[in-house]
């Protein structure tokens, strides 16, 4: 197992290297640079733009730029944000916790609802309730998250006043205080509900089908024959078996949740990685763009690794492969 893990971790290095080339190439192909774009005629002059391009090395040959970027990157220097004028590292450290918080809360919501719905559907397939759940899940998939987000804000924030509509914390609260954490929770809840409740489809479907399949397997028949009660069969035997494949989903989800919240973060002005990414696209803030992309790629790799390792633990056949 250890050997397998080590091999997988080492296997990540060439992938990350390839990814870095792709990320860098794409960034270079993107039109414009931070000094093109919108021009404020009263504040900018062409000489300045040229001067900055030279200074930041945009005029150097591509491979030199790449080597410089990778070398710095490996040493933990992710470059400077041209818009915010601070190291990219600081910027990301500032935003990442928000996104992780949002991701965790929404994941918990997804899990709770998906488990409840998946177990119900799997136990009573082809019933009215099962169809209703399937319908809900597909409506959830079908409604674009920006429409859901805006409707939720107008209904829950403006109409009912239950949740704040923007930001991650109340203005003026000091970090460390009780109120601060309560406020954080209060702010994250609505976007997390939107993300969490709209994302139950794949989990529910998977769980449902797996439960149905497992319920026909020998060990269930044996349990039934031994006179185990139906609820014990479902809650103990089947759930345990169906959870195994779901664990692998968790690995995949790490990066999806962090990178996939772009729209929700935008609508709720929730200052996380997704929103930062979009802002950076608009501002052509390449150092930030490339770092976020690399970060998300890395997290995906890590997620896949975790998924594989978990899977390897529960199903030894994979390890041998």
């Amino acid at each position, binding site marked *: 197992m250890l050997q397998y893990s080590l091999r997988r971790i080492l296997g990540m290095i060439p992938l990350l290297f390839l990814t870095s080339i792709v990320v860098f190439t794409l960034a270079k192909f993107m039109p414009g640079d931070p000094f093109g774009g919108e021009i404020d005629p009263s504040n900018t002059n062409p000489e300045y733009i040229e001067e900055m391009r030279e200074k930041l090395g945009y005029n150097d040959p591509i491979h030199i730029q790449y080597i410089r970027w990778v070398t710095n990157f490996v040493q933990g220097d992710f470059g400077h944000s041209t818009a915010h004028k601070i190291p990219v590292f600081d910027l990301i450290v500032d*935003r990442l916790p928000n996104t992780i918080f949002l991701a965790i809360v929404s994941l918990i919501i997804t899990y709770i609802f998906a488990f409840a719905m998946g177990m119900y559907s799997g136990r009573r397939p082809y019933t009215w309730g099962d169809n209703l759940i399937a*319908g809900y899940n597909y409506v959830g998939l079908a409604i674009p998250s920006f429409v859901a987000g805006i409707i939720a804000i107008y209904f829950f924030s403006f109409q009912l006043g239950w949740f704040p*509509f923007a930001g991650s914390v109340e203005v003026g609260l000091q970090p460390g205080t009780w109120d601060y954490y309560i406020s954080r929770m209060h702010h994250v809840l609505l976007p997390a509900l939107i993300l969490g409740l709209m994302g139950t489809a794949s989990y529910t479907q998977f769980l449902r089908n797996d439960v149905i399949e497992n319920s026909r397997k020998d060990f269930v028949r044996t349990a039934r024959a031994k006179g185990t009660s139906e609820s014990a069969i479902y809650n103990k035997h089947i759930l345990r078996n169906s959870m195994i494949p779901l664990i692998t989903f968790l690995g995949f989800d790490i990066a999806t949740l962090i990178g996939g919240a772009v729209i929700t973060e935008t609508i709720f002005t929730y200052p996380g990685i997704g929103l930062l990414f979009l802002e950076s696209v608009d501002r052509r803030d390449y150092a930030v763009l490339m770092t976020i992309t690399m970060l998300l790629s890395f997290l995906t790799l890590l997620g896949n690794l975790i998924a594989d390792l978990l899977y390897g633990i529960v199903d030894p056949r994979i390890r041998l492969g």
Partner: protein
Amino acid sequence: MKKKSFWLISLLLVFSMFLAACNSGNETSGNEKDGDKEEANTGEPVEGGKVTLAVTTAPEGVFEAAYYRSAVDAQILEFTGDEIYQVNDDLEYEPDLATWEISEDKLTYTFKFKEGVKWHNGEELTVEDWQFALETMADPDYDGERFNYVEGIKGAKAKKDGKADSIEGIKVIDDYTIAITFEEMKLNNLENLWSHPMPKKHFEGIAVADLGESEQVRTNPVGLGPFKVKSVKPGEYVELEKFADYYKGEPKLDSVVVKVIDASVANGALQNGEVDIMEVIPNQVEELEKMNHITVEETTGVGYSYIGLRFGHRDQEARTNKDDIDKFKNKDLRHALLYAIDRQAMIDAFLSGKGKVFNTVIPSTFWIAADESELTQYEYNPEKAKELLAGAGYKDVDGDGFVEDPDGEPFSISFGHYAGNATFEGRSQAIIQSWNDIGVKTELATGSLIEFNLYNDMKTEDDEALEAFFGSWSTGSDPDPSGLWANNAEWNFGRWVNEENDKLLNEALSEKAFDKDYRKEVYVEWQKLFNEEIPAIPLWENLDLYGINKRLQGVHINAVGFQTNTHEWYVTE
């Protein structure tokens, strides 16, 4: 049976969600209207209070005038800073922190500072703070983008190039008096001079190269304005509190929060009272005007839109423009293109009527603007457009419904527009169909709206796809249009070159033009030239719009913004 009822239910579920959205809007506005009537009766000012200003893009967090880049940072700086001069409602420059006298030769300006003006950290403002700002900006290590504001001072270039340690043209006379000598006599030397002092003591010990990224600029800025930065939550909000020692008088409000929100919930936030004031876009206005507790203030601004026509290329090395493309050389063709467009209808459709048709490129709010009676109005007249085309030799020879050029060659225009707002698609289509309707074949450049940054690069690089292109400018308070329309200007994107053009623009900055009436006369001549030549198709000047909750009073709005008197803002509840 079960299956059928399920179908119904899932559909009902979908539609009830939609209905919830519609209802919530209507009901809320009803409630607000009732509550508002009571409010309107009690309009008395209240001590203190907090006001929320909403912005739709996040501040970048660079709170020093010499370094900021984003418009939102600029709005925050308006609260925290003050300048040597201010711009009045007629866009004229007036003394603020200092008064000045101009020498005989018009090269040296002597500034006399107000005494007793305090920085947020309690230090007193002296001319050294201003000198510090100018010296910093001429420093070779200065990495902000505003060297051009000190460039005109004698010796500034020498310092920038490392040939001098300080700027020759700055002379401190005493703590409150300073003389600035310019390199050459120019009428708008003052307008082009940097006007924000920097807190010298606060920045002490920081190398110029590190200044823009320092704590002192980013999280703990010190200014002269009525409000000071209390806390910054990046990407989310900036909390400002009043500065009691503000030299124009203690601000009436306790605090101002600048909060970032998404544009799609802006109206709801204004309606709900969570936001008190914000700059709004025309799309929002119709709904806002129905809310009784919201006033929509509008004013003619300094922004305008036009359609650029490409006449040539720019030689980036020589920094000159060459008019080497003949497509739009025919003046009647250009006039026809203008007559073809129903500009008022477009304003009504895409700007909710919040714009004003104009026929030059000088917004009417400027004191140099020519009277409309002196200009040709080019009212929508497709028949006239067709006549002009025919008269100029543009006729449909091959019977495809579109005109050919006078040589009988096929003629078509590739028109570019950038992507963004949902109305842009309609706007570009309206222009394209207007031209197609008079028989000038027009296609959307690249086949789709172009991503904004890419679009700007294409304009800068004279991309061939942009034969005609939609453009907008916000000019700032200096009326001189040279930076955008002079023959060799970088941002004269159409590359229009005309002898008379440069002659007039230079004349308007000459010594003779120190006489204001004469200067205006010259600019009126220039506008007449533009109006006759139509080197670009003027569309409309934009109105600046602000949505303000009625509980917030005392906001003075003019062409340069809404933040000229923030210390006088007050709330009524």
